[in-house]
C-alpha cells in the first residue's frame, strides 16, 4: 500500500513528506508505547499513534518505519521540533481525525497487514 492510499483511506493531512506519497508501507503498527514499537515493529511499517513528541520520530527512525500517522486529530506541539526532525530524516508524518482503532481497521480492511507473524489474520478468516 502506498502512502497516497493511506492518506486517502484515512482522509489524512500530510504534515511532512508530501513528495513521498509514493512510498510503500508493508505493514501497520498501532501503538502509544514507544518501547513496544522498538520491540515489535518491523522495517517498513506504518506507525499509527496518538503520541506526538520528538521520541516518536526517533523510535520510527530506529526501526526504519516507513511513515507515522498521528491519530485522533493530533499534531505535534509547535514548541517541539518534531516536524523539523522528521524532515531531516525524510520521515513522512500524517494526521487523521480517525481514532486509533478505526484507523487501523480501515487500513486493515483495505489490505494492509499487521505485524504479528501471520499478519494478524489467524482466526479472522
Amino acid at each position, binding site marked *: 500500500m502506498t502512502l497516497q492510499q493511506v492518506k486517502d483511506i484515512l482522509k489524512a493531512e500530510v504534515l511532512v513528506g508530501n513528495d513521498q506519497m509514493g512510498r510503500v508501507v508493508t505493514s501497520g503498527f498501532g501503538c502509544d508505547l514507544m*518501547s513496544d514499537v522498538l*520491540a515489535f515493529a518491523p522495517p517498513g511499517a506504518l506507525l499509527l499513534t496518538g503520541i506526538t513528541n520528538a*521520541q516518536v520520530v526517533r523510535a520510527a527512525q530506529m526501526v*526504519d518505519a516507513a511513515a507515522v500517522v498521528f491519530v485522533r486529530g493530533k499534531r505535534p506541539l509547535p514548541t*517541539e521540533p518534531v516536524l523539523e526532525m522528521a524532515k531531516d530524516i525524510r520521515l513522512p508524518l500524517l494526521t487523521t481525525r480517525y481514532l486509533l482503532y478505526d484507523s487501523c481497521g480501515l487500513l486493515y480492511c483495505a489490505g494492509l497487514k499487521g505485524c504479528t507473524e501471520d499478519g494478524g489474520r489467524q482466526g479472522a478468516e
Partner: protein
Amino acid sequence: MDFVSAGDAAAKVKKTLIQVGMPDGVVRRAAIATYEAEMNIVIHAREGAIKASITSDQVEIVATDVGPGITDISLAMQEGYSTAPPHIREMGFGAGMGLPNIKRCADELDIQSEVGKGTQVRIIIKRSGEGQ
C-alpha cells in the same frame, strides 16, 4: 532531563553504522539497543555517556551513567517492570521494556550497577549474531 534531544546519540550511531556498511540487521539491532540505553540515562540518571566502538565483526555499545543505580537487576530485566515516573509513561516510555529490548537485540549484555552511584551497560552486537 532533555527529552527532546534524547535519541541523538543513537541516531549518530545508526548513521555511522550505515556509512561503514554494516548489514541492515546489525544497524537496526545496534540502533534500538543504543536508543533504549540512551533513554534509560535520560529518564533515570543525572548524567551519562554512550560510547560506541565499531570493528569489522561487531559493535560494542557502552552506556555509563551517574545516577540511582539499579536495586535488583534481575527484576529490571523482566518485561513490564519499571520505576519510571508517570510523566515519562505519558510520553510513551517507562513500560518496562527497555532492558528486555536491549537484551533481545544484543549478542552479549553485561550490566554493572551500584545503588546510589550509577550503572554501566555493555552491549555487544556481532555481525554474525542471531539477535533480533
